C-alpha cells in the first residue's frame, strides 16, 4: 500500500486550509456589485395569499427591488419537482401537488417563501422584508400524518385527495399473512421514528450571478451534487439552458442529505439576479434552516414478526405511514419506499415479507433523505422488534439473531435486494467481545448497588449503499441514472489532476481519491489534485449521498486510471524499446521488469506532450475519462452494542460504552473511515436521546427552531467510541468497497433504545429518550 496508498492512514490534504481559516464556503464568496437577499416567509402553516404589497419596502433605504411569486410565474420559472416516480398499489402514479419557488396563491408550511428582498446590506434587506405587507387568509392546519389521512382534515393540494400521495406495497401479502397465521409466536410492536433536522453546521447559502453580456448564469451554492442542481434548474425550472448555467459548490460545510436538493432559494436568487441586474447572495440563518431545510424520518409503523417453534423468523408484516411535509422534495418518494422497505430483511433469512407504505402531505417542512435515508427507519424497526422478540421468547438477543442470520451468499431477499457478501456473525462476535458482553451481569449488579439501572442493547444493521445500477433504479422510478464520472489528467510535468463528479463536504475526497493515484503510480499525493464541485470543470456527475463516493465515484477513477496506465505503459515501452507487457509502474517510475531500465514518471508524461517520440499512430497527451455504472448496490453491515446507566431518580441516561463493529469491505483510509463512523454514531445517538422536531399541532408553528430548543448532541452528551472493522470485500466493484458514511447513524438508535429499555424494564419508549420520558417509562414499569 505504501505510505500514501490504499489502506494508509494518511492525514488529510484539505485540512490546512480549514485549520487556517482559508476554507472557501459559499457565504465567503464576494463579487463586485454583489447585493444581499432576504426572503419574506409565511408566518402561517396554511393560508391563502390575498395580496402582497411591497411598495413601502421598495422605497426603503438600500433596497434594490422586492420580487414575488406572480412575477416568477410570469417569467416562466417552473415548479419544483420530485425526481422519483412511485406508483400506488392500484397502479396510479403518485399525487404530486405544485410547489412554487415563491408561493403566490397558497402557503403550506411556516417558512414557505413568498417574496425576495434585494438590498445593499443584509440589515437593510431585513428591515425591508419586515415592511412587505402580505395579506393572508388563514386556513386550518394538520401536522400529523396519520391524522391528515382521516376524513374532514384540511386538504393541502387539490391533486392529492385526503392528503394521500401514494399507497404503495412491496413483497407478498398472502404468503406473509399465511406465515403469521401459522406462527408459533408473533411479536407485535408500534414503532415511531422521530422527525429530525439535519443541521449541517454551514447553513445553506447561494450566490446567483447573471451576466447580461453573455446571457450566462453562475450559481454558487451549498450543494452535495452541483451537476444535478444544474440539470434540474435547466431541464425543469427553466432558469437557463445547461450551457448557460455554471453551478459551483465550493467548500461545503456538511450536508447529511439536506444539501442534495435544489431549493427555492437557488432558483430565485438566479432569477432575481437577472431581474435586478446585480449578483444576489442569500445566506440562511439557523432558524431559516430549521424551518426550510428538508427534514428527515417521521414514520409511524406497526410491525408483526412471526416465528416458528425453533425461533426462526417465518414472516414480517409492516405497515408504515410516512410524513412528507407540505411538498414532495427531490427524492422524498424514494426514501420511505425503495430506500426503506427493500432493507426490511435486515441480516436475516426471512422467507415472507410484506410492507405497505402510505405517504402523506402535512403543513410541515418537506421531508427527504437524511443520513441513512430509509435504512435507519428499517433498521430501527427491525432491531427493536428483534430485541422485543428475544425478551418475549426468553432467549438471548444475540442467539435470536444468530439463529436467523443469512449465512450463504449471494442471498436474494423477498424485497428486491440481492446481498452479495457478508459475515454477520463476525461483526456480532467482534462487538460482543469488544463490549465484554459476557461480563455485563456483574457490571449490572455493581451498578444496582449504587442505585443505578444498567442496561445493554445491540443492533445488527444492514444497508444498501453505492446507489446504484442506473437501469435498476430507472426501472424503480428514478428520474436519473446513478453512475459516476471521472477524468484523470496527467500534466506534462507528471503531476496529476483527478476530476470527479463526487462532491466532498467533509468526507476527505481530496486525500482518499489522491491515495488511489499514489497507490497506482507511486507518486506522492501532494502531486495529485482532486477537482470537484464545478460544472465548468467536471463535465457531469451525480454527486455524493448514500455512501456512494467510494463504491461508485472511486470506481470511476479506477476505470480512468486503468486507461492512463495502459497508455503510459505503451509510451514507456516505446521509449525503452521494450514490450509493454513487461512494463511495471513502481515508486513513480516505469520499469522494464527484470532489468535496470527505467523511465521516471515525469519523463514519460513529458514525452506524451512533446510527442517527439511516441509509438506510431498514438495521439499526443495523457488524459482519460471514464463513466462507471455499478453492477449492484453494496451492502455494508455490522453490529453495534450500547451499554447505559439510567438514574431512576432523574431519568437521565448515561452512555457507558458504545461499540461499533462494521464490515465496510476494503478501506482506503482507516482514519477517515473511523471518523465517518464516529460522526454517524453521534447523529444516531442524537436521534435516540436528544433530537426531535416539534410542530404545534394546533397551528403548525415550529417549536424547535433554534439550538435553544432543538437538542443537538454536544461533546458532553457523548462517550468516546470503540470502533473496529472486520471486512468482507465487495465483489461488485474494482476496489471491493462497500461504503461507510451512513452506517453509524443507521445502526446506533436501536442499540441505544434497546439498552435503555433493558435497563428500565419497560419496552414502551419512543425516541428521543429524554430524561422525562425515561423517568416516566421506568416508573410505569414498577
Amino acid at each position: 500500500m505504501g505510505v500514501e496508498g490504499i489502506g494508509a492512514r494518511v492525514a488529510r490534504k484539505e485540512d490546512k486550509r480549514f485549520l487556517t481559516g482559508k476554507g472557501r464556503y459559499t457565504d465567503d464568496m464576494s463579487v463586485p456589485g454583489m447585493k444581499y437577499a432576504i426572503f419574506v416567509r409565511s408566518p402561517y402553516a396554511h393560508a391563502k395569499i390575498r395580496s402582497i404589497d411591497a411598495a413601502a419596502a421598495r422605497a426603503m433605504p438600500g433596497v434594490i427591488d422586492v420580487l414575488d411569486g406572480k412575477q416568477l410565474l410570469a417569467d416562466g420559472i417552473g415548479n419544483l419537482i420530485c425526481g422519483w416516480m412511485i406508483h400506488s398499489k392500484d397502479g396510479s402514479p403518485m399525487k404530486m401537488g405544485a410547489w412554487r419557488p415563491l408561493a403566490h396563491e397558497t402557503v403550506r408550511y411556516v417558512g414557505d417563501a413568498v417574496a425576495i428582498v434585494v438590498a445593499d446590506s443584509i440589515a437593510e434587506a431585513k428591515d425591508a422584508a419586515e415592511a412587505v405587507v402580505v395579506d393572508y387568509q388563514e386556513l386550518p392546519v394538520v401536522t400529523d400524518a396519520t391524522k391528515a389521512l382521516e376524513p374532514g382534515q384540511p386538504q393541502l393540494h387539490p391533486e392529492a385527495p385526503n392528503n394521500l400521495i401514494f399507497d404503495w406495497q412491496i413483497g407478498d401479502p398472502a404468503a406473509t399473512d399465511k406465515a403469521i397465521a401459522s406462527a408459533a409466536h408473533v411479536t407485535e410492536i408500534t414503532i415511531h421514528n422521530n422527525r429530525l433536522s439535519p443541521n449541517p453546521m454551514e447553513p445553506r447559502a447561494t450566490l446567483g450571478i447573471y451576466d447580461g453580456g453573455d446571457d450566462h448564469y453562475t450559481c454558487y451554492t451549498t450543494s452535495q451534487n452541483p451537476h444535478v442542481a444544474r440539470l434540474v434548474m435547466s431541464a425543469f425550472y427553466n432558469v437557463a439552458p445547461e450551457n448557460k448555467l455554471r453551478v459551483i459548490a465550493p467548500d461545503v460545510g456538511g450536508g447529511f442529505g439536506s444539501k442534495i436538493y435544489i431549493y427555492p432559494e437557488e432558483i430565485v436568487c438566479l432569477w432575481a439576479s437577472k431581474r435586478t441586474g446585480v449578483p444576489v447572495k442569500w445566506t440562511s440563518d439557523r432558524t431559516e434552516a430549521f424551518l426550510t431545510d428538508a427534514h428527515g424520518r417521521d414514520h409511524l409503523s406497526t410491525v408483526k414478526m412471526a416465528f416458528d417453534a425453533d425461533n426462526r423468523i417465518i414472516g414480517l408484516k409492516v405497515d408504515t405511514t410516512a410524513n412528507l411535509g407540505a411538498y414532495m422534495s427531490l427524492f422524498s418518494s424514494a426514501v420511505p419506499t425503495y430506500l426503506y422497505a427493500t432493507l426490511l430483511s435486515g441480516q436475516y433469512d426471512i422467507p415472507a415479507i410484506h410492507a405497505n407504505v402510505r405517504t402523506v402531505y402535512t403543513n410541515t417542512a418537506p421531508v427527504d433523505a437524511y443520513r441513512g435515508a430509509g435504512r435507519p427507519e428499517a433498521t430501527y424497526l427491525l432491531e427493536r422488534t428483534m430485541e422485543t422478540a428475544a425478551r418475549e421468547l426468553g432467549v438471548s438477543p444475540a442467539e435470536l439473531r444468530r439463529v436467523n442470520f443469512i449465512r450463504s451468499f449471494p442471498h436474494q431477499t423477498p424485497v428486491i435486494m440481492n446481498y452479495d457478501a457478508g459475515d454477520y456473525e463476525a461483526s456480532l462476535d467482534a462487538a460482543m467481545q469488544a463490549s465484554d458482553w459476557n461480563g455485563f451481569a456483574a457490571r449490572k449488579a455493581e451498578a444496582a448497588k449504587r442505585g443505578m439501572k444498567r442496561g445493554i442493547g445491540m443492533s445488527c444493521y444492514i444497508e444498501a449503499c453505492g446507489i446504484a445500477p442506473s437501469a435498476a433504479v430507472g426501472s424503480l422510478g428514478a428520474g436519473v441514472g446513478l453512475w459516476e464520472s471521472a477524468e484523470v489528467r496527467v500534466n506534462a510535468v507528471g503531476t496529476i489532476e483527478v476530476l470527479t463528479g463526487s462532491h466532498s463536504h467533509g468526507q476527505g475526497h481530496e486525500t482518499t481519491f489522491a491515495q488511489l493515484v499514489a497507490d497506482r503510480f507511486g507518486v506522492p499525493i501532494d502531486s495529485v489534485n482532486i477537482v470537484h464541485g464545478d460544472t465548468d470543470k467536471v463535465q457531469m456527475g451525480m454527486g455524493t449521498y448514500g455512501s456512494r463516493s467510494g463504491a461508485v465515484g472511486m470506481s470511476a477513477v479506477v476505470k480512468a486510471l486503468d486507461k492512463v496506465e495502459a497508455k503510459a505503459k505503451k509510451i514507456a515501452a516505446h521509449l525503452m524499446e521494450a514490450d509493454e507487457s513487461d512494463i511495471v509502474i513502481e515508486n513513480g517510475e516505469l520499469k522494464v521488469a527484470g532489468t535496470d531500465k527505467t523511465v521516471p514518471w515525469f519523463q514519460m508524461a513529458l514525452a506524451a506532450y512533446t510527442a517527439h517520440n511516441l509509438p506510431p499512430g498514438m495521439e499526443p497527451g495523457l488524459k482519460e475519462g471514464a463513466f462507471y455504472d455499478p453492477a449492484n448496490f453494496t451492502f455494508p453491515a455490522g453490529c453495534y452494542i450500547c451499554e447505559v446507566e439510567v438514574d431512576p431518580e432523574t431519568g437521565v441516561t448515561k452512555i457507558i460504552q458504545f461499540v461499533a463493529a462494521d464490515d465496510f469491505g476494503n478501506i482506503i483510509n482507516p482514519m477517515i473511515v473511523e471518523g465517518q463512523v464516529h460522526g454517524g454514531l453521534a447523529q444516531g445517538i442524537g436521534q435516540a436521546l436528544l433530537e426531535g422536531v416539534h410542530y404545534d399541532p394546533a397551528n403548525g408553528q415550529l417549536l424547535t427552531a433554534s439550538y435553544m430548543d432543538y437538542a443537538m448532541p454536544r461533546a458532553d452528551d457523548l462517550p468516546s467510541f470503540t470502533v473496529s472493522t472486520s471486512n468482507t470485500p465487495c465483489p461488485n466493484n474494482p476496489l471491493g468497497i462497500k461504503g461507510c458514511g451512513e452506517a453509524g447513524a443507521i445502526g446506533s438508535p436501536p442499540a441505544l433504545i434497546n439498552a435503555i429499555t433493558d435497563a428500565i424494564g419497560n419496552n414502551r419508549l419512543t425516541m428521543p429518550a429524554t430524561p422525562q420520558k425515561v423517568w416516566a417509562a421506568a416508573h410505569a414499569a414498577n
Partner: protein
Amino acid sequence: MAKITMTVNGRQVSGQCDDRTLLVHFIRENLGLTGTHVGCDTSQCGACVVHMDGMSVKSCSTLAAQAAGSEITTIEGLAANGELHPVQAAFKANHGLQCGFCTPGMVMTAVDMIRRHGGQLDEATVRAELEGNICRCTGYHNIVKAILAAAVEMGGARVAAE
C-alpha cells in the same frame, strides 16, 4: 455609523460600520477574514469564536463597537511563520475535523481552554468545556483526542522551557 479601530492579528485596522454591526460581521465583511463563521443565531454553536484580549469570545454576540481598542485574534492569526499552531497541528494529526465549518471556532476555543488549564486537561473537562461549540461531523471523538494531544504537547513544551 461609527468608525471603529482595533488590532486584528497584530495589525491595526479601522472601519465604518452600523452601531448594530456584530464583531463577526465586521471581521468577515469589513476585513474580509472569512475564516470566522456564523453557524447559528443564538450564540450556541461557537463557529464564531475569536480571542479578544487573549480570551475566547463569541463574535456573533459581541458588537463590533464593544471590540474597539481591543486586540483580536482570529483563526487566520494563529499560525506563525507558516507553521501550524500546536492545536491546529493536533487537529490535523488526529482527524479532528471533517467539513471544516466548526473548526475555526473549535480551534480558538481549544487554544483558550489549554491556556486556562495547562497540561492538566482530562477527557471529561475537555467535553464539558466544549459545551459551547457544536460539531455535526466528527461526533467530537477526534476533537477531544486532538485537544488532549495538543495540551500534552503544549504543556510539555512549557515544562521544557521552564
